[in-house]
């Protein structure tokens, strides 16, 4: 950037290993943007990081109220981290409500940066304060730094062309500038972003740029801010990295799968939080031949995907709990038709509309048993934003190879948070294509004649002469696929459908163990990965033995799982639900389990799991 202030010599910053920062303000204050930009700079700077956006279900709840508070937490480190952090070391509060809603999370002695202009009488009541927290001593336990961000922003942008109240919109960039100063972040990436986003000479762009500088300069000028910090780039495994959001990685994994399966991608979907961004991301890649159909509802979403699958496409439908419920009937049809289909469920807080913008792992049993009749299908899960690409690819591989719908379980935390992802060598991704059926002149085509190895049936697509055939939801003859009401045939088909899915166990990796000992195995799945692994590592640092196994495949389970479970005295299963994986494990292997279950709409906290592990190791818990 062409401005010297930002490159001025500065006091040597204190080197720290990592820091957790939370930007909090009104839904209208642009905290998500400030956080994202701060993250982007840190990523390009080479830190390891993990983020946790947190916003209300309303678009813009009333200003100044607790309900309207939106926050963005980012954890940056010079080492390999796995979670956005349990509690922030630094909190940016743009108004009293944001302070009220977030202060209890701030680590004691933590750095608290406050926009003092918002701390006026009229805002206190709305936020539930009776007195001014900046004055009543209630913040004594923290290092408080106040800045009149609104005044300074107004002042700074006065020549931008933006006028009136609109000038205040730039105050998030002031905050961003200030934070960049304190944590010694490069601001050039932000400057570039502003330029590309708003164009070189748009008033708004200018205003944001000016506010950014003002914030940075504020740091330079204010004595109290001359103690700054720096986090060195992380020693991550060598490679090229990008900072990826979970849903984006999922969408890209699907595109990669379609390329490697040599099948155009077709997404039939209906918008729903937190799944919509998958539809939005895929809609942007039509040059890959990706077709996205925004259906009238979830039933049409999966219906269209099923039709596309019959037509020979790599078909996907994406949704969240309430939508998965609506897809159940058609999913059962896809299952009996034995057509490949990927159903993505971004789990959120339930039941019903529940907590639509919050995380939960409570659709596992629904995914497993959420269809009438005997309806087994494979379930694949993802454990982190950087894992979503591979998980989506794996779901697609299974769907096509075994001619079956597959449910991919991710969740609201993975969907919206981001972390560095080491780019795969996409040319090295396996070929997952399968041949379509070919007509043989002599024999008549038998759509349900199975391949011995996979038990999967041939895929014959319209347009192919000689393979005309009809399939439907009524039970079919196990070879011809014609409607059959024969009792024995129904039993045969029920067993075939079950065996086909069960046999996939032979085609998935064994579950691997991290850590050691034979006392305790912590068994997890999905987005609790980072928290569990962090907790397990801390416990092991403390000198105690404990093991961690994390499941990608929830149906069928990895072939060695039963045998692995046998090896431990206790199986601890932390889940963001009431114990759903535990139920499956108990029914399947008849092993007792100890649950650690939280259903608060929040990601698991490493510290809580750590405590729980110690408790179990101390013998305080019996299954």
């Amino acid at each position: 950037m062409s401005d010297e202030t930002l490159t001025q010599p500065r006091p040597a910053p204190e080197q720290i290993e990592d820091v957790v920062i939370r930007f909090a303000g009104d839904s209208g204050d642009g905290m998500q943007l400030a956080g994202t930009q701060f993250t982007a700079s840190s990523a390009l700077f080479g830190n390891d990081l993990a983020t946790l956006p947190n916003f209300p279900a309303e678009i813009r709840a009333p200003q100044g109220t607790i309900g309207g508070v939106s926050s963005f937490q980012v954890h940056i480190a010079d080492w390999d981290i796995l979670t956005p952090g349990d509690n922030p070391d630094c909190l940016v509060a743009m108004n009293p409500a944001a302070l009220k809603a977030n202060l209890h999370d701030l680590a004691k002695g933590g750095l608290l940066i406050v926009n003092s202009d918002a701390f006026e009488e009229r805002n206190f009541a709305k936020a539930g304060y009776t007195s001014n927290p900046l004055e009543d001593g209630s913040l004594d336990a923290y290092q408080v730094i106040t800045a009149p961000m609104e005044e300074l922003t107004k002042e700074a942008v006065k020549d931008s062309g933006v006028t009136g109240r609109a000038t205040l919109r730039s105050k998030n960039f002031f905050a961003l500038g200030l934070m960049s100063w304190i944590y010694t972040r490069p601001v050039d990436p932000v400057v570039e972003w502003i330029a590309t986003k708003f164009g070189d000479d748009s008033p708004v762009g200018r205003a944001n740029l000016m506010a950014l500088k003002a914030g940075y300069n504020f740091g330079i000028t204010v004595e109290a801010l001359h103690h700054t910090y720096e986090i060195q780039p992380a020693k991550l495994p060598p490679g090229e990295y990008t900072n990826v959001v979970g849903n984006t990685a999922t969408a890209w994994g699907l595109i990669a799968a379609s390329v490697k399966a040599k099948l155009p991608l077709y997404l039939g979907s209906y918008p729903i939080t937190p799944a919509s961004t998958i539809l939005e991301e895929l809609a942007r890649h039509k040059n890959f031949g990706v077709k996205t159909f925004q259906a009238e509802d979830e039933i049409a979403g999966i219906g269209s995907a099923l039709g596309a699958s019959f037509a020979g496409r790599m078909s996907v439908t994406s949704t969240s709990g309430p939508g998965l419920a609506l897809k159940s009937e058609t999913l059962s049809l896809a299952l009996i038709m034995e057509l490949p289909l990927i159903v993505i469920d971004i789990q959120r807080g339930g039941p019903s509309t529940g907590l639509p913008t919050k995380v939960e792992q409570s659709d596992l049993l629904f995914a497993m048993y959420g269809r009438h009749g005997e309806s087994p299908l494979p379930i694949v899960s993802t454990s982190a934003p950087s894992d979503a690409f591979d998980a989506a690819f794996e779901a697609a591989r299974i769907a096509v190879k075994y001619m079956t719908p597959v449910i991919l379980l991710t969740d609201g935390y993975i969907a919206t948070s981001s972390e560095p992802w080491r780019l795969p060598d996409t040319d090295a991704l396996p070929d997952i294509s399968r041949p379509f059926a070919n007509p043989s002149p002599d024999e008549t085509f038998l759509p349900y004649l199975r391949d011995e190895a996979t038990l999967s049936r041939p895929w014959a697509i319209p347009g192919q002469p000689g393979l005309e055939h009809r399939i439907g939801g009524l039970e079919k003859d196990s070879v011809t696929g014609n409607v059959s009401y024969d009792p024995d045939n129904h039993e045969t088909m029920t067993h075939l459908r079950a065996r086909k899915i069960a046999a996939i166990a032979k085609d998935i990796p064994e579950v691997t163990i991290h850590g050691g000992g034979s006392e305790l195995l912590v068994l997890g799945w999905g987005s609790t990965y980072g928290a569990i692994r962090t907790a397990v590592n801390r416990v092991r640092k403390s000198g105690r033995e404990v093991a961690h196994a994390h499941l990608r495949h929830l149906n069928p389970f990895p072939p060695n799982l039963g045998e692995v479970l046998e090896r431990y005295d206790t199986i601890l299963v932390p889940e963001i639900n009431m114990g759903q994986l535990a139920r499956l494990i108990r029914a399947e292997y008849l092993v007792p389990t100890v649950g650690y279950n939280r259903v608060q709409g929040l990601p698991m906290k490493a510290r809580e799991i750590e405590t729980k592990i110690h408790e179990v190791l101390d013998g305080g818990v019996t299954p």
Partner: protein
Amino acid sequence: MTDTARYERSDFQTDQEVRWCPGCGDYTILASVQSFLATLDIDREKHVFVSGIGCSSRFPYYMNTYGMHTVHGRAPAIATGVATANPDLTVWVITGDGDGLSIGGNHLIHALRRNVNLNIILFNNQIYGLTKGQYSPTSEVGKLTKTSPMGSIDRPFNPVSLALGAEASFVARTLDMDRNHTIEMLAAMHENRGAGFLEIYQNCNVFNDKAFLDLTDKETRDQNRIWLEDGKPIIFGKNGEWGVQVDAHGARIVEVADVGHHNLHVHDSHAPNPSTAFALSRIAQGPYGPTPLGIFRNVANPSYGHEMERQIAAAQQKRGPGDLQTLVRSRGTWTVD
């Protein structure tokens, strides 16, 4: 049927025994559709029949083409997937008055609104056949059925009015027993590249026999069948004694003698404004008394499947075919070494 036809009707028959009740109108419709397809110069393997659930929805099993017998009411949605995934296919939707208008009403109106490249055939027998005779959304008020022992209080849909209200580009109506007219309608629908909607009055001789008597009975049919023919004034009756006029208040039946031949409404299914078609659809609220048969509306609009292809082509034109390495790098990267 041209004698140069590549196919015989039998080429479209399957080895599956047809399982409709003896005397069911579905048999006639099956014959008409098979005969029509045989007249087309379209490869058999390019046809896909998609149906929901109901007696009528068993149709695909009897067509020697690709076919999907799906779930109740969802055929238009599933067919939308087939037709948009591969617009080179000729996709047919077979549905019933329960399947298409009760549980499936939403998918139907959305497929019509989007003008998806589909040919939708609604078998309207004004009853739920497969579930043994409950009233349907086209059953008349007061109908006595197992679920309406004191008479149905549901006011029925007029499928043609509903389709027109849903922005349909092609809307027509015919009778199961009139094979030639059925084939004529099928041909016109098939020519229209967008979404076509054809209502066929179909007799269910087991649960709703003679529902269409006014239109089928030798005695009454001539004065009740109002044939809509483009470019011709709308005249009907044994000796063409009746006609139709349309004005600000809608369409009404008049005696030709009273108003004079030249004052009758001249039918134009291609009129961009659907108001006239809608007015004509209100002449009868069901197959009772004089009822219009034929093409109500037939206008050309871009088809959904082809519009999708257009955007794909444009995107590839503009940005070139997708490349995975470029994709994963698109959000900015850094290197650790």
